């Protein structure tokens, strides 16, 4: 099987973030591999391992695919050290500030050319928090959408994939065939830590850096634009009391004062 995993480099969730000219200022914050994408990498590796492996001469390959600045190769390296075989990074100044539609358009074109059987994503990028790129990719590719999976089962011979989808709407059992786009929730597995051997091996793995034109994607222009962005006034400092036996009653008084009861 040819498995692709979409991974994004994002600003560290703990970092102070600010907007410059309507865009997230990515230059001044530490960047990391989107932690939800680690679950996608782990799941891809487990699927490969369950069906003949992805080592040299194995039956499968796991390719990381990312769109972002050149610097994103740092995050990609982490995925390679977990055990992915190789990576493709689409990096081009025309893509700066790309929205979800452009991202999905570019990634889908890369998938298309790579003839992948399964594309695995995280459920959201911790910076954009849209949870739409996997659905958009599957729309663009015209293939099965198997998203928000807490369980993924693959039958390579039958080219069939079945998942358990967990969302606020409940729990669904869904199946589809190759090629398909899967996204996985963080309950699905426990991502492995890169081993020393893995880290050393990753240094020798290839990251194929491509420009926008080579993807064959149709457009670069974002269809949604930020008009303005401003920091919100910080929450007014609240009252913190230490319980001396009367805190329960004081809490009720607070709720009354705020007309919440």
């Amino acid at each position, binding site marked *: 099987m040819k498995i692709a995993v979409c991974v994004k480099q994002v600003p560290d969730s703990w970092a102070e973030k600010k*907007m410059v000219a309507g865009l997230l200022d990515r230059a001044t914050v530490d960047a990391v591999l989107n932690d939800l994408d680690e679950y996608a990498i782990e799941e891809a590796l487990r699927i490969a391992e369950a069906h003949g492996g992805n080592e040299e001469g194995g039956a499968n390959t796991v390719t990381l695919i990312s769109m972002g600045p050149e610097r994103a190769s740092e995050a990609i390296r982490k995925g390679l050290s977990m055990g992915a075989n190789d990576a493709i990074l689409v990096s081009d100044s025309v893509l700066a500030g790309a929205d979800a539609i452009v991202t999905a358009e570019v990634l889908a074109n890369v998938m298309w050319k790579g003839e992948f059987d399964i594309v695995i994503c995280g459920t959201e990028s911790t910076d954009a928090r849209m949870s739409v790129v996997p*659905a958009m990719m599957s729309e663009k590719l015209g293939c099965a959408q*198997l998203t928000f999976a807490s369980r993924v089962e693959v039958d390579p011979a039958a080219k069939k994939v079945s998942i358990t989808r967990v*969302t606020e709407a409940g729990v*669904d059992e869904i199946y589809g065939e190759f090629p398909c786009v899967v996204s996985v929730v963080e309950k699905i597995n426990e991502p492995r830590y890169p081993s020393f051997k893995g880290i050393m091996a990753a240094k020798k793995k290839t990251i194929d850096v491509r420009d926008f034109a080579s993807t064959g994607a149709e457009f670069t222009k974002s269809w949604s634009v930020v008009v303005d962005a401003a920091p919100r006034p910080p929450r007014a400092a609240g009252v913190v009391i230490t319980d001396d036996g009367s805190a*329960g009653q004081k809490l009720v008084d607070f709720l009354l004062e705020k007309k919440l009861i």
Partner: protein
Amino acid sequence: MSNVLILADFVAEKCTKSTVELATAGAGIGEVTALVLAPVGKGAAFAASITQGPITKVLVIESDDFARHGVAAAADALAHVTQELQPAGVLVVSHAFGKEVAGRVAMKLKIGIITDAVEVSTDFTATQLVFGGSTTVHSKVAQGCAIITVRPNTITANFVAATPVIENTTAPISDCSKKATLTSSEPPVQGGRPELTEANIVVSGGRGTNGDFAAVEAFADSLGAAVGASRAATDAGWYPHSHQVGQTGKTVSPALYVACGISGAIQHRAGMQTSKMIVVVNKDPEAPLFELADFGVVGDLFTVLPPATEGVQARKA
């Protein structure tokens, strides 16, 4: 007058409060048409459950493909109706299903999409709160009609009686959209309390409950609140995953959020930071969630919550 199309949202075959919120946002801009996607034979009942909200027209499409093919089939229908009606904009509820449907429609029709809006202005400029609520962003769609997903509980719903004209229509579902097939569907367990994302008050418990949610539930019930949980609590199996609040759980924006025995990890904050009022009960004065508290109690939840519960009940009696 311009038209606004909304995708009506249902839970257990009943129209949700979020639908009324979408209609309210839409009515500020133009006449609201609500699209109802229902299984064969259920269209009339679904439409009849739309009893409130400024809705002029209800369009009903009946097809068993919606239950069988989920998101992709719903997106086909919404895209088709959007092309027919040519509305000024389309509003959808910002939950996993709504966002995915909107994403596919945007890709299909080549129109811009904005997710998680907390406000929509008359020219379809959407207000979003990003970076854990620390920054307000205004966004606009630069191409085509806007498709915007609106976060539940952020727009004050106008509960006027709805007396819409009801019409039936159809939409083609493409073969590509039938490539994923649902074999079974289990609705979430409701358990008699309000739905988390719709609730006016949410009381949540974390690892500090040590698995005993009775005090949290009792306080929630005294307030008519929904019960939420941190990931530590859902991972331990103390509370169902569908009640998890946070980055990988639900995003809630209630009038009051009460966090009991929750430390305030960034992933938890991501789901509750935009609550209007925040109360924190935690043994540890250093717990980071106190930074967000309008009212904080450093204390044991098992000794603080019971008298508070009695106090609230006494007020009501």
